[in-house]
């Protein structure tokens, strides 16, 4: 059974791009347009990993990671931050929130897939 990955990004084209890369590697993809949307779509879903943008309206990525870590069912779900932000301070924020990896856009598909393969839950 294919593993499911949630892609959270306010850019529809970025969600498509990430979706193409992940689906091509055999993953199922659930899309969300921001942190709030992602939290609402988590319910009832088995999510093996989350790929999340940082700068988004309504709820940014860092806040979303903090929120998901409070949910018993998703406490251990790994989150990869996928963002244009490359400052060390932002990375530290992501790490403190509970993210497992930080990938800078524009990413090479094989780089993201390598990180996903390493972190995705069985």
């Amino acid at each position, binding site marked *: 059974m294919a593993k499911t990955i949630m892609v959270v990004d306010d850019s529809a084209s970025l969600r*498509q791009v990430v979706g*193409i*890369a992940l689906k*091509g590697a055999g993953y199922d993809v659930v899309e969300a347009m921001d942190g709030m949307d992602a939290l609402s779509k988590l319910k009832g879903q088995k999510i093996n990993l989350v790929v999340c943008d940082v700068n988004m309206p309504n709820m940014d990525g860092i806040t979303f990671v903090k929120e998901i870590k409070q949910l018993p069912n998703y406490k251990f779900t790994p989150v990869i931050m996928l963002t244009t932000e490359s400052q060390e301070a932002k990375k530290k924020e992501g790490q403190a929130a509970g993210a497992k*990896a930080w*990938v800078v856009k*524009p990413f090479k598909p094989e780089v993201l897939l390598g*990180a996903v393969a390493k972190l995705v839950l069985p």
Partner: protein
Amino acid sequence: MALFWPGAGWLGILGALAFIAVGVAAWLQLGVAAPAGRDDVPAYLEQRQAFSEAVMPVWCRQIEASRSQMEDAVAELAGRFSGIVDKLDTALHLSSATDHGEASLSQVFSHSETQLGEVVATMKAALESKHAMLARIRELEQFTRELRDMAEGVASIAAQTNLLALNAAIEAARAGPAGRGFAVVAQEVRHLSNRSAETGRSISDRVNKISSAIVSACHAATESSAAEDEAMRSSEGTIDNVLREFRNLTDAMAQSSELLKQESVAIKGEVGEALVQLQFQDRVSQMLGHVHHNMEMLPVVMDENRRNYEAGAGLQAPDAQVLLGELEKTYAMAEEHAIHRGEMATAKASDEVTFF
């Protein structure tokens, strides 16, 4: 909808931004070049405020519309790439199923070849059996020759017995009354020899008929066997031809399947490159968003400048650093900082992953 390549959109939008920046700078300089008369200053500041409030929303709407159109176009482009990748995957899956599935073409071919080989072997065995039977029938012909010789032997013995009986009758007549009994025996022997001769002829006739029937059957069987040999060779040739054509077809299909796989790998590589290029839209969109947000603050800065004048702080040039400082705070990319400093900036796909 007209689609544009993200790289081209990127350059076009940067050009537009530069154009707007030049316009804003010129306008700010006009603002610094205060009117000649002191009495005209409040009216000038009022008009400047109205100007900024009229122009800025239009500029911002244009930027936002460009951003939105670009987002829609790139999303559609990405969707089409997604469709291409899906179709490729489907084609590859079908091709792979043909190569590795239970009923793959090469397996069907091997199975058919084996089965047809068995049919040919069975037919050959039947023909061999028929040839053996024909040989046995030819042996019967030899037996009939022997029977004919034996019948001729019987006829010869009958003729000699008859001659012997005739001599015995002559000798019995010469003996007179004493040989009368012997003459009767000689007469009976002659009857027996005649009957033996007749039986011999009858056997000979029957043997001839049987021999003729066997020769006729042998002839028919030989002709039939030759026809069957020819049919067998023809069938074998036809089966070989069919198998060769089938083999050519399966080889061609295997080659085309392999070619499809190679092309698919190459296309997937190209799509991977395209995925990187498509992401530049997101960067451009973010940069436009930051500039848009900063431009919206310009009327506020102008208004504050006017209020300061009205409060008696004197006529001062609007401070560009206020806006630029706010703009810098919104930057997310190293590239934006470099552009801000007037440096050349290039963005390329990152290989780096930071694991925590």
